[in-house]
C-alpha cells in the first residue's frame, strides 16, 4: 500500500520500535530465567498470558493456544492483547542483536540480515492484514475434528503490521531460474530433539505480492514474543501457518517444501468427503481463507429495549479478492437485508459492517451474518466438513433478548 505520508512517518516509528526492541530482548532473557516451568531459552506461558486481554480464553497450555470471542473483537484494528495465540511448539526467547535472517536456495547470492539491516536497507511499509489460523472455528464442525478446539468465532485478528516487503529481499538476492516456492523456517523449539522444525512454503506469486511482508512490528510496537519476535512472515489472507514466526531462514525452492507441516497438516481434500471420513490421497495445501464474517456487536445474550435502535455490526474478510456485501437476517435466514459496508482499506484488512436495527417485537431475537465476495461466493450455513477441521466459515449467529 503506497501511502507516502504514512510510509514516512511509519518508517521513523518502526525504526524507533526496532531500537526499543533491544531492551525487550534483555527482558526476554530475564523472563525466561525467572521461569515457572519454562525451559531455558523459552518464554513461559504465564509471561505470555500476562500480555493478553482478560477476555482471552486459553484452549490448551501445551502448546499454548487462545483467542477472544467475537464480541471482544469489536475493533477495526485488532489490539495486540486480543490477537490470537497459536504455537506448534514452544515460544523462543531470541536475542534481536544476534538474530539473522538468511536467504538461500535458488538465489544469485545468499544474503544475511540483522533486523536493523532490514530496516536500514529496505523500504519500510505499514499495512493492516488479516491472519487467521486454518483451524479457526473448528469446534463448530460435526463430528468433531482433531486439533485445537477454536471457538466458532475465535482464532483470527487484523492488526497493523510493519516491516519490509518479502519481494524486495528476494529481488536483492536475485531469483534463479526455476524458483517456484519460498519456504520460511521458524526458530520455535520442540520438547524433544526429534521435533520437526516448523517450515512452510508459499508459491512465488504470493511471496512477490506487495502485501507479503517480513515484519518486525505489530501495531507500531516490536512484535510480542508470542507473535514472532523479533521477525516473522506476514502472508495476509492466508492460513496463519503460512506466516512463519521467529523467522530465521528463507529458502527459495523449485517446488513446495516437503515436510510434515506441508504434507501432514494444513491440507484439505481436493474433492469434498463425507463427514467422518479420513483424509483421501488427493489433498491440496490450505492457502487463502474463503469469505467470512463475524458479528462483533451486540454480544450474545445482551438485553436490548423494544423500539430502541441498535447498531448490529461486525467484521468481514476474504483471503483473496474483496468483500462485496454483507447481509443480516433476523428471521433465521428467510429474508436478508444489506448491511452498510465501511470503505475498503488495505487489501487484506477486514471491513466493518453495520445494520441499523429497531426491534419490532419483544422476546428472543437472532442475527445471522452472511458475507459475499467479488467472485460470487457467499458464506454457507454449514461449510464442508474436512478431516482436519479447517476453514470454518459458516454463518455467525448471535441471539439477544428484546425487553418490552
Amino acid at each position, binding site marked *: 500500500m503506497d501511502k507516502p505520508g504514512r510510509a514516512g512517518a511509519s518508517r521513523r516509528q518502526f525504526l524507533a520500535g526496532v531500537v526499543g526492541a533491544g531492551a525487550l530482548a534483555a527482558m526476554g532473557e530475564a523472563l525466561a530465567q525467572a521461569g515457572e516451568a519454562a525451559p531455558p531459552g523459552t518464554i513461559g506461558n504465564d509471561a505470555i498470558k500476562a500480555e493478553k486481554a482478560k477476555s482471552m480464553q486459553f484452549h490448551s497450555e501445551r502448546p499454548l493456544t487462545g483467542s477472544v470471542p467475537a464480541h471482544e473483537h469489536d475493533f477495526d484494528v485488532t489490539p495486540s492483547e486480543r490477537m490470537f495465540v497459536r504455537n506448534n511448539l514452544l515460544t523462543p526467547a531470541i536475542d534481536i542483536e544476534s538474530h539473522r535472517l538468511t536467504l538461500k536456495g535458488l538465489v544469485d547470492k545468499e544474503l544475511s540480515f540483522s533486523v536493523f539491516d532490514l530496516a536500514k536497507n529496505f523500504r519500510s511499509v505499514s499495512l493492516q492484514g488479516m491472519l487467521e489460523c486454518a483451524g479457526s472455528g473448528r469446534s463448530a464442525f460435526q463430528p*468433531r475434528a482433531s486439533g485445537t478446539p477454536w471457538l466458532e468465532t475465535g482464532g483470527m485478528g487484523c492488526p497493523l503490521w510493519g516491516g519490509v516487503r518479502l519481494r524486495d529481499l528476494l529481488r536483492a538476492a536475485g531469483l534463479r531460474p526455476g524458483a517456484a516456492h519460498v519456504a520460511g523456517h521458524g526458530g520455535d523449539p520442540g*520438547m524433544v530433539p526429534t*521435533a520437526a522444525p516448523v517450515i512452510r512454503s508459499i508459491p512465488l506469486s504470493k511471496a512477490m505480492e506487495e502485501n507479503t511482508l517480513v515484519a518486525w512490528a505489530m501495531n507500531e510496537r516490536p512484535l510480542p514474543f508470542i507473535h514472532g519476535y523479533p521477525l516473522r512472515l506476514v502472508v495476509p489472507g492466508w492460513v496463519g501457518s503460512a506466516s512463519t514466526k521467529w523467522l530465521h531462514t528463507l529458502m527459495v525452492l523449485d517446488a513446495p517444501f516437503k515436510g510434515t507441516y506441508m504434507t501432514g497438516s494444513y491440507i484439505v481434500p481436493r474433492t469434498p468427503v463425507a463427514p467422518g471420513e479420513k483424509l483421501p490421497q488427493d489433498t491440496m495445501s490450505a492457502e487463502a481463507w474463503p469469505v467470512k464474517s463475524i458479528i462483533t456487536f451486540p454480544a450474545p445474550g445482551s438485553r436490548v429495549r423494544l423500539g430502541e435502535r441498535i447498531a448490529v455490526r461486525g467484521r468481514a474478510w476474504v483471503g483473496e479478492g474483496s468483500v462485496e456485501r454483507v447481509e443480516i437476517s433476523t428471521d433465521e435466514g428467510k429474508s436478508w437485508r444489506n448491511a452498510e459496508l465501511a470503505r475498503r482499506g488495505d487489501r487484506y484488512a477486514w471491513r466493518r459492517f453495520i445494520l441499523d436495527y429497531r426491534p419490532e417485537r419483544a422476546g428472543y431475537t437472532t442475527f445471522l451474518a452472511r458475507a459475499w465476495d467479488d467472485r460470487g461466493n457467499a458464506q454457507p450455513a454449514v461449510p464442508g466438513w474436512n478431516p482436519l477441521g479447517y476453514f470454518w466459515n459458516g454463518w455467525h449467529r448471535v441471539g439477544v433478548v428484546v425487553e418490552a
Partner: protein
Amino acid sequence: MRHSLSIGLLAALPVMGWTQDRLISGPGSTLTENKCRICHELEHIRRAPLSRGEWADNLRNMKERGTPMSDAEMATILDYLSTYYNRDKPAPLPSPDTLASRDGVEGLIQKNGCAGCHALGEPLVGPSFRQVAAKYAEDGNAQGKLANKIRSGGQGVWGSVPMPPNPGLGDAELKTIVAWVLQQK
C-alpha cells in the same frame, strides 16, 4: 542460539500434573499417555474421538512431527486409541493396562512414566538408560544414588532439565528398576 535451544529445552514437562492426567485405563493406556504428553495435554485426545483411520493418520503425523516412538509402539497406541477414543463406537469399561504390567521391569518403566523421557540407547528428553549406567559404572554407591534420584527427582546431573520425583514408587519396584538400569551397559 537457536541450535543450542533445541537440546537444552527438553525440560519443561511441567513437573506438577505430569502424572495426574490419565487416559481411560486399558491395554496400552500408559504407553499412550507417556508418548502423547511429551508435547501436548491429553485433553487433545479426550476432546475429539476419531475413527480408526483418522487415528492412523494422526499418529503418522505425530511421528513425522518428531514423537519418539517405534512402529510397534505406534501400533499399540493405534489399537488403544481406536478402542477407547473411537467416534464410531462407545468405549469399553476401563480395564488393567496389561501391556504395561506384562514384562517385569519394562512394564514398571512404562507404568511409572519413565519411558516418556528415557529409552535404552538413545537420549530422548532425558539421558538413555545406557548413559545412566555408564555414568555410575565406577561408583561404589551407585545403587543408593540412583534410587534417591529416581525417588526424589533432580536436576543438574544431566543439565538443567528437571526430572520429576516419583514418591509413589514402592521400595521393591524401585530396587528392581535401579538394578536393571545399572546393568544396561
